[in-house]
Structures are given as C-alpha cells and as structure tokens.
C-alpha cells in the first residue's frame, strides 16, 4: 500500500487499508478453521484406514467438478439457504430456535399431501404459490407454542423448540402413515407430485429454481437485519433484552414475530425441498438439515453472504459425500464429524483471535 506512512517503526494505516485488513482478517478467520477441520477429519479417515486425499478429491470431483454433481450441489443449497436465513433472524435476535427440523419436516409433509391434490384444481403456478405459502404457515404454526412460552412465561426456548422438533418428526410420520398415505403404493409415502409440475428448473440444467428463492431469502434477511429499523430493533432485543424493555421496545411481540419469521423460513425450506426435489415424503424421512445448518450459521457469524459460502461448502461435502459413500465405503455420517470439528475449530480460532487482540492492546 503506497499510501501508508511509517512513523517511528509503527505502521500508521489509512482507514481504507485498515478496513481491507479487517476484512482479510475475517476471511482468514473463516478459512483457518475450515482448513484445520479438513486436516483433522482427514486424520479420522486415516485412522479408519481410508486415504483422506483420495476421499477428498473424490468428494470434490463428484460434488463440484462433474456437471451432475455441481447441479445437485446447487439444488441441495435451496432448502439449506432458507433454513439458514431463518436461523440468522432468530440468532441475531438472541433467540435459540433449535426446532428447525420439526418446522421443516411438518411443512414438507403438509405440502407433499396438498400439492398433488391442488394440481388438479389450480393452474401449475398457483399450486406452487399456494404450497409455498402453506409451507411457511405450517412452519410458523409449529413455533407458536415455544414463542408464546418464551415471550410471556420466560420458558427457555432451547428446550421447547427441541421438544417441538421431536414431536414434529413423530407427528409427520403419523401423518404420512395414517392420514396422507398414497393408497396406490405399498411403502408408506404421500402421493407424488409429477416432475413436470414441480418448481421449474433453471435454464437447461437440473438445478431447481428453489435456489433462487433461497438466495433471495438469505440476502433479504441479511439486508433487513443489518440495514433496517426493524432489524436494528431485533438486534437490540438480542444484545440486551432488559435494555430493550427500557428503550420501550415491545419485547414479547418482537419475540413472537422473530419466532414466526424464523420458523416460516424453515417451513419454506421444507416446501421448496418437496416442490423442487423430492415430490413426495416417504415415512421416516428426516434429513435433519436444521441442526447441521446451525453450526454453519455460527461459522458465518450470522452474516448472510458468508452463510451462502458455508452452505455451498456443506452442499459440496454432502453431495460428494453421498457419492463417496457408495464408492469408498465411508458413510455419510462422516460429514457430521467434519461439521463438529469445524465448529470446535471455529471456537478455538475465535478464542485465539480475542487473545491476540487483547495482547496487542
């Protein structure tokens, strides 16, 4: 940088280079845990007698470099982005909505039951729109109880949302097996939405247009949370609820609103997964996306754009990992290990960074 000046050995940086450095530091702080986690997970593979380099290169090749793989990866991102945007709203407002899996799955089941019926009554586009709205509404409905308990009784939402998730997963199964079961099949599953009636694909690829919905949602959420008065209010509630009450903010109402928005986005994720990819729900299907997205959102420090990057990385790992499971015999559970190590590495990086800064000052 030519415009930085040296005085007495101490670098005095102009604001611009300072900002650049701050940004680089953030990028480095995100990359270091990722690389570290991949190395440590590689050691786990090594211990299991699998060549980590072979595994990783296979994952990258299958998840990122093959035309089929990259399309599958981008399609996988759609529900994950919606879940991530829901989590960002909640976490920024200091509310631990850990019930995303229940909200996602119930919405998926209701949409899967509704869409094949509606398609005979309504035009295609109207069916899709109605189903997306219903999906969001079902997700939001599944958060009403935790929201009210948190807002008016002060009951810890970590517990209530987790309980609602377990309840929702079983309830979804009951619905699939008893109420919405397709009588034409022997395995318990809902009726199937024909491929032609699903969310349109992008251009000439197999990428679902759900990706666009997901990207729009997460960017919108990012801008609302960082640039608008509403977002600021939520962040104040998150940073210090007591101060928020003193500032005259309607904390209970905002809490309920946060739950509703967050859960509606998770529910939308379920709707998009059914309308764009699955077409139906089989009994006992539970991808458990939400609890795996939680770490990614943390890793991105609740930043929407960084979340997109981490969701992409996770999609590559999970799509590539699915192929690798068939080829190299490493089951998909391995991605869970990677995510866990990633989280721990993130924590350590953050801790070291804090210490470094504390020592520098």
């Amino acid at each position, binding site marked *: 940088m030519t415009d930085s000046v040296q005085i007495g050995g101490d670098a005095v940086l102009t604001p611009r280079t300072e900002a650049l450095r701050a940004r680089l530091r953030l990028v480095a702080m995100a990359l270091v845990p990722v690389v570290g986690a991949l190395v440590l997970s590689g050691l*786990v593979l090594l211990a*299991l*007698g699998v060549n980590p380099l072979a595994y990783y290169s296979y994952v990258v090749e299958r998840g990122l470099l093959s035309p089929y793989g990259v399309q599958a990866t981008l399609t996988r991102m759609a529900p994950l982005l919606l879940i991530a945007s829901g989590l960002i709203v909640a976490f920024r407002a200091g509310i*631990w909505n*850990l019930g995303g899996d229940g909200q996602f799955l119930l919405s998926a089941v209701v949409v899967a039951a509704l869409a094949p019926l509606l398609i005979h009554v309504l035009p295609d586009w109207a069916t899709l729109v109605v189903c997306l709205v219903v999906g969001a509404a079902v997700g939001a409905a599944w958060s009403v*109880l935790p929201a009210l*308990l948190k807002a008016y*009784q*002060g*009951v*810890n939402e*970590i*517990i*209530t949302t*987790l*309980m*609602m998730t*377990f*309840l929702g997963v*079983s*309830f979804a*199964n*009951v619905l699939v*097996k*008893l109420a919405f079961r397709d009588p034409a099949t022997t395995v318990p599953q809902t009726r199937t939405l024909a491929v032609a009636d699903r969310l349109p694909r992008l251009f000439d690829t197999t990428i679902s247009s759900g990706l666009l919905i997901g990207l729009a949602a997460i960017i919108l959420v990012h801008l609302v949370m960082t640039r608008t008065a509403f977002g600021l209010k939520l962040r104040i509630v998150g940073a210090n609820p007591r101060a928020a009450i003193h500032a005259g903010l309607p904390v209970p109402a905002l809490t309920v609103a946060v739950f509703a928005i967050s859960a509606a986005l998770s529910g939308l994720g379920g709707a998009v997964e059914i309308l764009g990819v699955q077409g139906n729900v089989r009994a006992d299907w539970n991808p458990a996306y939400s*609890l*795996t997205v*939680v*770490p990614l959102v*943390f890793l991105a420090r609740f930043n929407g754009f960084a979340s997109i990057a981490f969701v992409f990385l996770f999609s590559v790992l999970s799509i590539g990992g699915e192929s690798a499971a068939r080829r190299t015999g*490493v*089951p998909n*559970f*391995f*991605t*869970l*290990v*990677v*995510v*866990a*190590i990633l*989280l*721990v590495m*993130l*924590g*350590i990086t*953050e*801790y070291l960074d804090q210490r470094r800064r504390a020592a520098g000052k």
Partner: protein
Amino acid sequence: MSALFTEAFLTSLILGALTAGLPLLLAGLGEQISEKAGVLNIGIEGMMLIGAYVGFLIAYETGSIWLGFLGGGVGGMAVALLMAIFCVRLGLSQIVIGIALTLGAEGLTALLHHFQFAQSYPRLPAVETLAIPGLSSIPAIGPALFNRPPIVYLAILAVPFVAYVFRSTQLGLALQAAGDKPAALDAAGVDVVRVRTFAVLTTGFLAGIGGAFMAEVGAGIFIPFMTNGAGFIGIVLAMLARGKPLWVLLGALLFGACLSITTALQVAGVDIPTDVIQMLPFAAVLAILVLFGRRASLPPALGLHYVRGAR
C-alpha cells in the same frame, strides 16, 4: 380393556418404565449437577451416545458388563472433558460447543459402528439380575422392581446421595454458588473454573453410564443414533426438577413409562401406531412446561462464562 389390568401388563409397564427411565435418570441427574454449577450442557446427548458405544464395545469384547459401564462412563467423561476445556476454561459458547459435541458423537459412533460391525448388529447376552430376597416375590411389582441388574439399584441410590451432597456438603455449596454467584465463590477463595470442571466431568460420567445402560441392558445392542433425544429429555428433567434430585427420579419414571408403554400395550393386545406413542414423552414435556413453565427455574449465571475479576 380388561387386559390392561392384568398382572403381565402391570409388570411389563413398570419394567419398561424402569428400563427406559434409568438412562433419563442418569442424564437428568448429571445435567442437574452441571446446571447447578452454571453450565448448560447441550452436549449431553453426545456424551450418552459415546457412552452407549464404548460401553457396548467393551462389554462385547470383554464379556464384563461392569467394565462396560465403567468404559461408558469414561467415554462420556472424555466428551465432557472437551466441553470443560472449551466452555469452562476458554469460555466458548456452551450452545455451539454442545451442538458440536452432539453432532460429532453422532457421526463418530455411526462411523465407527459402520467400520467395525459393517452391517451386522452383534448382540449382548441378557444381563444377569439380582433378586432382592423377599421383595422380589411380591406379585406384579416384585419381579419388575426388585429383580433388576445391580446397576439399577446403584443408579437409584445415587439419587439420595446426590441430594445429600447438594444439601449438606461443602461441595454442594460450592456447586450452588458457582451457578448462582460465581464471583462470591471466587471471593471466598474457591476456584470457580475447578468447581465447574468437576461438575461437567461428573455429568459426562453419569450420562455415559446412562448411554451404556441403554446399549447394554435396554437394547443389548448398539444402534447408531440410538439415544434419540434422551439427552434432551434429561435437560428438561433437570430444569423442571429445580435442583431436587428426587424430582428427576420421578420425572424419569414418568417419561420411561411414556417411552415404554408401546411394549406394554402390545402385551395387552392394544394396537396403537408406534409413532403416536413416541410423541407421548415430548407432548408430556410440553404440557408440563405450559402448566408449570414459569416455575422451571435456572441458576442466574447459567450459560455465562466466568472470568476472574471481570464484571
């Protein structure tokens, strides 16, 4: 409906409640110790799962059920050690690390199970029971309550023991203070970090034994993801019990009954889909939270990292 009141039904219901409830009791009791000391332990599910895997493996390889429990406890403690290092020493977010440990334990045990047993699911022989003379011959209740593996009696004896420690010992006082007013404890010359580390490790040990019990006694087999939310129910039990170990025991038996009622109903010849039954314990938790939510109490410093001298 008359089949519901037969001796066989009653015996299988009590037996089921005890078998399904014991891991919840150990998890809840452990979580209570952590929470008392101010650490919200979301990773308890992971500790149970590692305990289940290690406990099963050791019992399977050595043929000793006791070594299995010990191994399960130590396994859970190893996970708890990570929690203690990251959350108590370094002050990282207890929720993030808790989720990480649970996810990691899920992935790791499923992975190890896959590589070790491939698709076969080896089984342990049935665990020997210890009949308490006299009591075990009471009809219906006797065989269900007083003819159980010795670990069951030990776990139940742990309840009054923990209650005694909480109420009447220095250690109990220190645990309580670490959760309520860590600064005061510090001022009294007790190392808060050490107290909390002790609490978290104890939690891991108990949760690990709880997991081992699930695999060794409850199922006789290790299945990936087999804890299926038991750790989270343990957290709820600890919260609702408000620091009273006896309430954890009662809650654990209640949830155990919910979890095991399917088997009992099958014995009685009533056919209800298992998914409906599986909703019961979680619906029960929510019902209790709706009714008594305001009264579920948590220590003031729960979830907060304590830094010496910081305000």
